[in-house]
């Protein structure tokens, strides 16, 4: 794919083969069913990985990819929420309509209409990310704040709002660890 990595660093092909699935699944958390969005994010994560290949080591690469995926997703969703981002999304959807390409994907989308994932998708972008990190990865408010470079108070506020919304939609979310 590219010139070999420096001595001691991970092999890029091996890195992609080993972690592409996981990165894609993390990306799909926030994609609201848009596979191309998750592909874009996966691409961007591995580009970052290539740029930092000199510092990547096998033992910590999964954690590094997780942090990068969450941060890139958070940034991308925040950008989407701006007016320019919404216009860009509208243009993208016209140019690249999101239609399930296989019957399996169509079935999976129907199944998620009333699912927890669909409720997560309905949350505002920033609340979506912090709630996903809190519920699926069991991260504390402090860990989320460190991961996304936010203040703990802001993370707490986002989680409270998200929990209130979910509650109103019939979902119970247990108390978040501080």
């Amino acid at each position, binding site marked *: *794919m*590219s*010139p070999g990595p420096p001595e001691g660093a991970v092999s890029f092909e091996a890195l*992609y083969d080993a972690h*592409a*699935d*996981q990165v*894609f*699944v993390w990306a*799909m*958390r926030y994609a609201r069913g848009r*596979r191309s969005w*998750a*592909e874009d994010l*996966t*691409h961007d994560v*591995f*580009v970052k990985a*290539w740029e930092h290949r000199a510092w990547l080591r096998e033992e910590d690469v999964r954690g590094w990819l997780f942090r990068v995926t969450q941060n890139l997703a958070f940034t991308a969703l925040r950008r989407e929420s701006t007016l320019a981002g919404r216009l860009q999304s509208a243009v993208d959807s016209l140019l690249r309509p999101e239609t399930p*390409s296989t019957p399996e*994907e169509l079935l*999976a989308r129907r199944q*998620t209409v009333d*699912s*927890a*994932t669909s*409720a*997560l998708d309905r949350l505002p972008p920033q609340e979506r990310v912090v709630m*996903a990190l809190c*519920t*699926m990865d069991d991260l504390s408010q402090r860990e989320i704040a460190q991961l996304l470079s936010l203040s703990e108070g802001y993370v707490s506020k986002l989680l409270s709002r998200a929990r209130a919304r*979910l*509650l109103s939609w*019939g*979902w*119970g*979310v*247990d108390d978040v660890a501080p």
Partner: protein
Amino acid sequence: MMSHRDFRAELKQEEALRAARGMPASARHAVRLRLRGTLQPRARWAIPRWIWVGAFTTAMVALVLGRVLLPREALGGFQLVSASRDLTTRQHAEDLELEKGQATLVDAESGITVRNQGPLVLRHESGGLRIVRGGAELSVTPRPKGSAPAVVRVSDGVIEVLGTHFTVQQWEGGGTVTLHEGSIRFVPARGGAEVRLHPGQSLKWPLPEEPVVPGPMPPINEPPASAPLSHGPRPSRAKPAGEPKTPRLSAEEFLREVDVLRSRKDFEAAARLLEEGLRTQPPAMRELLSFELGSLLTHQLRDPRRACAHWARHERQFVRGRYEAEVSQAQAALDCPRGGREP
């Protein structure tokens, strides 16, 4: 009391299902291809920035030096210094015709700058140029003392220049030269005394019939009586009494005939005619004819053997002659044997 579904538990279950499905093969392949496209150029651009900066600087320097040092556009043996947009030129054999527009040309060999005044036909010749037809403003950068004069040839003679600014009009069978600054010397082709012009003076040709006793040719606009017209006749240039006054061809006809043959590229015939002229034309014209013949053998016929032989004869016949510097240059270029020996 309303029971709520467990968001955390169901979300984890759904995430586990997604993880089990993994990344679709098509998506995996598509992202891999995109990554190849993205990362390969980056690898190429990983060349250190200083190399790009160095290459750019070198290119800019080369461009600037190229503009300054490289030869300007050539036009009929001249360097084109400037030209108007509507300039149209034609090349007839050795003649360059400026039909329309304005151009400034430089003859690098002689250092003569020519700016046309309307249509102009001119020709690059050894040691100078020839105004065949039309009007031109000429200037010559001042030459160091002792160096050979630049030469501008017209139908009836030669204008020798040592750094000056003047205007020439040449038409069929005649013409004028007007000196603006500096000093020029008009050497009639058919012999007779040279005429030295001073700023503001003009000279028209064909010149009046030469008097039996040679004397200076009067300029058209007669300067004040105190202004000298020339340094007077040189005994060596004067026509000897024993010479026939009317050769078979007049000097003007003879030179025109040579010009016709040259324009037809019939250089051998021109050389034969010049050789004949060396016998039949007046002695005062012979140095010019001999020089013309040598130039023809050197530059047009490119015959080193005949050219060297001719230059050796020329040197013997015209010791410290008018074209001494040009003759030496031609001999050096041909690598002629020194000491005046004929090869």
